[in-house]
Protein backbone atom coordinates (compact mmCIF):
# COMPACT_ATOMS: atom_id res chain seq x y z
CA UNK A 1 0.00 0.00 0.00
CA UNK A 2 1.46 3.35 -0.95
CA UNK A 3 2.17 5.79 1.86
CA UNK A 4 -0.75 8.07 2.61
CA UNK A 5 -0.29 11.81 2.41
CA UNK A 6 -2.87 14.54 2.82
CA UNK A 7 -3.23 16.80 -0.21
CA UNK A 8 -1.12 19.97 -0.13
CA UNK A 9 -2.70 23.13 1.30
CA UNK A 10 -3.04 24.64 -2.18
CA UNK A 11 -5.29 21.75 -3.23
CA UNK A 12 -7.26 21.93 0.02
CA UNK A 13 -7.79 25.64 -0.53
CA UNK A 14 -9.12 24.88 -4.00
CA UNK A 15 -11.44 22.17 -2.65
CA UNK A 16 -12.81 24.54 -0.03
CA UNK A 17 -13.32 27.27 -2.59
CA UNK A 18 -15.15 25.02 -5.04
CA UNK A 19 -17.30 23.00 -2.65
CA UNK A 20 -20.85 23.96 -1.82
CA UNK A 21 -22.39 21.01 -0.01
CA UNK A 22 -20.89 19.16 2.95
CA UNK A 23 -22.52 16.04 4.37
CA UNK A 24 -21.50 15.69 8.02
CA UNK A 25 -21.63 12.05 9.06
CA UNK A 26 -22.12 11.57 12.79
CA UNK A 27 -23.24 15.15 13.35
CA UNK A 28 -24.59 15.54 16.88
CA UNK A 29 -27.29 17.87 18.20
CA UNK A 30 -25.14 18.45 21.29
CA UNK A 31 -23.37 21.83 21.10
CA UNK A 32 -20.53 20.54 23.29
CA UNK A 33 -19.53 17.98 20.61
CA UNK A 34 -16.85 18.82 18.05
CA UNK A 35 -19.12 17.79 15.17
CA UNK A 36 -21.66 20.46 16.14
CA UNK A 37 -19.05 23.20 16.49
CA UNK A 38 -17.41 22.35 13.17
CA UNK A 39 -20.70 22.04 11.25
CA UNK A 40 -22.00 25.25 12.79
CA UNK A 41 -18.79 27.06 11.82
CA UNK A 42 -19.07 25.79 8.23
CA UNK A 43 -22.76 26.69 8.04
CA UNK A 44 -21.87 30.22 9.12
CA UNK A 45 -19.37 30.28 6.26
CA UNK A 46 -22.29 29.62 3.88
CA UNK A 47 -21.67 25.97 3.12
CA UNK A 48 -24.78 23.84 2.70
CA UNK A 49 -24.67 21.39 5.61
CA UNK A 50 -26.44 18.05 5.36
CA UNK A 51 -26.50 16.09 8.63
CA UNK A 52 -26.16 12.32 8.32
CA UNK A 53 -27.16 10.67 11.56
CA UNK A 54 -29.99 8.16 12.03
CA UNK A 55 -30.46 9.31 15.65
CA UNK A 56 -31.96 12.70 14.84
CA UNK A 57 -34.64 14.09 12.49
CA UNK A 58 -32.70 17.36 12.15
CA UNK A 59 -29.53 19.08 13.31
CA UNK A 60 -28.70 22.80 13.05
CA UNK A 61 -32.13 23.31 11.48
CA UNK A 62 -31.29 20.97 8.58
CA UNK A 63 -33.00 17.66 7.87
CA UNK A 64 -30.85 14.75 8.95
CA UNK A 65 -30.61 11.59 6.85
CA UNK A 66 -30.02 8.09 8.22
CA UNK A 67 -27.30 7.32 5.65
CA UNK A 68 -25.34 9.04 2.91
CA UNK A 69 -27.20 7.06 0.25
CA UNK A 70 -30.46 8.65 1.46
CA UNK A 71 -29.25 12.19 0.72
CA UNK A 72 -31.27 13.39 -2.29
CA UNK A 73 -28.82 16.01 -3.53
CA UNK A 74 -25.26 16.30 -4.82
CA UNK A 75 -22.62 16.21 -2.10
CA UNK A 76 -19.15 17.69 -2.57
CA UNK A 77 -17.45 16.78 0.71
CA UNK A 78 -18.25 14.04 3.21
CA UNK A 79 -16.95 15.11 6.61
CA UNK A 80 -16.69 12.11 8.93
CA UNK A 81 -17.11 12.24 12.70
CA UNK A 82 -17.21 8.49 13.33
CA UNK A 83 -14.71 6.19 14.99
CA UNK A 84 -12.18 4.75 12.48
CA UNK A 85 -13.80 1.31 12.48
CA UNK A 86 -17.06 2.82 11.20
CA UNK A 87 -15.40 4.67 8.33
CA UNK A 88 -15.34 1.90 5.63
CA UNK A 89 -19.13 1.71 5.06
CA UNK A 90 -19.26 5.51 4.89
CA UNK A 91 -16.53 5.48 2.24
CA UNK A 92 -18.40 2.79 0.26
CA UNK A 93 -21.53 4.92 0.22
CA UNK A 94 -19.55 8.05 -0.63
CA UNK A 95 -18.07 6.27 -3.65
CA UNK A 96 -21.53 5.10 -4.67
CA UNK A 97 -23.08 8.58 -4.56
CA UNK A 98 -20.01 10.04 -6.31
CA UNK A 99 -18.77 12.62 -3.83
CA UNK A 100 -15.50 14.39 -4.59
CA UNK A 101 -13.83 14.50 -1.20
CA UNK A 102 -13.68 12.27 1.89
CA UNK A 103 -12.60 14.25 4.92
CA UNK A 104 -11.86 12.40 8.18
CA UNK A 105 -11.69 14.72 11.15
CA UNK A 106 -8.83 15.04 13.65
CA UNK A 107 -8.02 11.73 15.30
CA UNK A 108 -9.80 9.69 12.62
CA UNK A 109 -7.47 7.54 10.54
CA UNK A 110 -8.33 4.50 8.43
CA UNK A 111 -5.68 3.70 5.81
CA UNK A 112 -7.49 0.90 3.92
CA UNK A 113 -10.63 3.04 3.62
CA UNK A 114 -8.53 6.00 2.47
CA UNK A 115 -6.80 3.82 -0.13
CA UNK A 116 -10.11 2.51 -1.43
CA UNK A 117 -11.50 6.04 -1.76
CA UNK A 118 -8.38 7.24 -3.57
CA UNK A 119 -8.50 4.32 -5.97
CA UNK A 120 -12.10 5.28 -6.75
CA UNK A 121 -10.84 8.75 -7.68
CA UNK A 122 -11.85 10.63 -4.54
CA UNK A 123 -9.62 13.11 -2.76
CA UNK A 124 -8.94 12.00 0.82
CA UNK A 125 -8.00 14.08 3.84
CA UNK A 126 -7.38 12.36 7.18
CA UNK A 127 -6.75 13.46 10.75
CA UNK A 128 -7.38 17.10 10.08
CA UNK A 129 -10.15 19.46 11.14
CA UNK A 130 -12.19 20.84 8.23
CA UNK A 131 -13.16 23.99 10.12
CA UNK A 132 -9.57 24.71 11.18
CA UNK A 133 -8.45 24.15 7.57
CA UNK A 134 -11.06 26.66 6.41
CA UNK A 135 -10.19 29.10 9.16
CA UNK A 136 -6.45 29.00 8.52
CA UNK A 137 -6.38 28.63 4.72
CA UNK A 138 -9.28 30.70 3.42
Amino acid at each position, binding site marked *: MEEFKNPP*NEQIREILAQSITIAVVGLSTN*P*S*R*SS*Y*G*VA*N*YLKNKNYRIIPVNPKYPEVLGEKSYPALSDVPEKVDIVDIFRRPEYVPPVVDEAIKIKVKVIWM*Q*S*GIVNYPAAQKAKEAGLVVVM*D*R*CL*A*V*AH*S*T*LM
Partner: protein
Amino acid sequence: MTDPVEFTDDNFESEVIKSDKPVLVDFWAEWCAPCHMVSPIVEEIGRDYADKLKVGKLNVDKNSKTASHYGIMSIPSLLIFKEGKVVDQIIGAVPKNHLKEKVDKILA
Protein backbone atom coordinates in the same frame (compact mmCIF):
# COMPACT_ATOMS: atom_id res chain seq x y z
CA MET B 1 -2.98 36.12 39.37
CA THR B 2 -1.80 36.27 35.77
CA ASP B 3 -4.36 36.07 32.99
CA PRO B 4 -3.27 34.40 29.76
CA VAL B 5 -1.79 36.81 27.23
CA GLU B 6 -3.74 37.33 23.99
CA PHE B 7 -1.33 36.44 21.20
CA THR B 8 -1.99 37.75 17.70
CA ASP B 9 -0.37 37.75 14.27
CA ASP B 10 0.95 41.20 15.16
CA ASN B 11 2.47 40.50 18.56
CA PHE B 12 3.56 36.88 18.08
CA GLU B 13 7.12 37.78 17.19
CA SER B 14 7.64 40.04 20.22
CA GLU B 15 5.55 38.09 22.74
CA VAL B 16 6.45 34.52 21.78
CA ILE B 17 9.45 34.28 19.48
CA LYS B 18 11.51 36.85 21.37
CA SER B 19 10.26 35.95 24.85
CA ASP B 20 12.92 35.48 27.56
CA LYS B 21 10.82 32.77 29.16
CA PRO B 22 9.42 29.63 27.49
CA VAL B 23 5.90 30.21 26.19
CA LEU B 24 2.84 27.97 26.11
CA VAL B 25 0.48 28.96 23.28
CA ASP B 26 -3.09 27.68 23.25
CA PHE B 27 -4.45 27.73 19.66
CA TRP B 28 -8.22 27.90 19.99
CA ALA B 29 -11.48 29.17 18.46
CA GLU B 30 -14.80 30.31 19.87
CA TRP B 31 -16.78 27.55 18.11
CA CYS B 32 -14.53 24.73 19.36
CA ALA B 33 -16.05 22.94 22.36
CA PRO B 34 -12.93 20.95 23.34
CA CYS B 35 -11.01 24.25 23.36
CA HIS B 36 -13.30 25.50 26.10
CA MET B 37 -12.46 22.39 28.12
CA VAL B 38 -8.74 23.03 27.82
CA SER B 39 -8.73 26.76 28.44
CA PRO B 40 -9.28 26.60 32.25
CA ILE B 41 -6.40 24.10 32.48
CA VAL B 42 -4.17 26.41 30.48
CA GLU B 43 -5.15 29.30 32.76
CA GLU B 44 -4.28 27.22 35.83
CA ILE B 45 -0.89 26.31 34.35
CA GLY B 46 -0.35 30.01 33.76
CA ARG B 47 -0.99 30.76 37.42
CA ASP B 48 1.02 27.76 38.72
CA TYR B 49 4.08 28.64 36.63
CA ALA B 50 3.69 32.42 36.58
CA ASP B 51 7.41 33.09 37.23
CA LYS B 52 8.84 30.58 34.78
CA LEU B 53 6.45 30.31 31.87
CA LYS B 54 4.49 32.76 29.76
CA VAL B 55 1.06 31.42 28.91
CA GLY B 56 -1.30 32.78 26.30
CA LYS B 57 -3.99 32.08 23.75
CA LEU B 58 -4.19 32.60 20.02
CA ASN B 59 -7.56 32.69 18.29
CA VAL B 60 -7.03 30.83 14.98
CA ASP B 61 -10.01 32.54 13.31
CA LYS B 62 -8.55 35.98 13.93
CA ASN B 63 -4.87 35.08 13.48
CA SER B 64 -4.81 32.61 10.63
CA LYS B 65 -1.34 33.68 9.46
CA THR B 66 0.33 32.38 12.62
CA ALA B 67 -1.91 29.31 12.89
CA SER B 68 -1.17 28.42 9.29
CA HIS B 69 2.56 29.08 9.68
CA TYR B 70 2.73 26.53 12.51
CA GLY B 71 0.66 24.01 10.55
CA ILE B 72 -2.21 23.92 13.02
CA MET B 73 -4.60 21.24 11.71
CA SER B 74 -6.81 20.69 14.74
CA ILE B 75 -7.67 22.61 17.84
CA PRO B 76 -7.06 22.78 20.69
CA SER B 77 -3.35 22.60 19.89
CA LEU B 78 -0.91 23.60 22.59
CA LEU B 79 2.56 24.53 21.41
CA ILE B 80 5.46 25.18 23.76
CA PHE B 81 8.13 27.58 22.51
CA LYS B 82 11.61 27.94 23.89
CA GLU B 83 14.04 30.47 22.47
CA GLY B 84 11.70 31.05 19.55
CA LYS B 85 11.37 27.41 18.55
CA VAL B 86 8.60 24.85 19.04
CA VAL B 87 9.88 22.29 21.55
CA ASP B 88 6.66 20.41 22.20
CA GLN B 89 3.15 20.11 20.85
CA ILE B 90 0.01 18.71 22.46
CA ILE B 91 -3.05 18.17 20.29
CA GLY B 92 -6.54 17.78 21.70
CA ALA B 93 -7.96 18.14 25.18
CA VAL B 94 -5.56 16.71 27.76
CA PRO B 95 -5.70 16.38 31.55
CA LYS B 96 -3.79 18.95 33.59
CA ASN B 97 -1.25 16.39 34.84
CA HIS B 98 -0.25 15.49 31.31
CA LEU B 99 0.33 19.12 30.45
CA LYS B 100 2.22 19.73 33.71
CA GLU B 101 4.58 16.84 32.93
CA LYS B 102 5.40 18.32 29.54
CA VAL B 103 5.96 21.78 31.01
CA ASP B 104 8.12 20.41 33.85
CA LYS B 105 10.31 18.58 31.35
CA ILE B 106 10.89 21.74 29.36
CA LEU B 107 11.58 23.88 32.40
CA ALA B 108 13.94 21.32 33.95
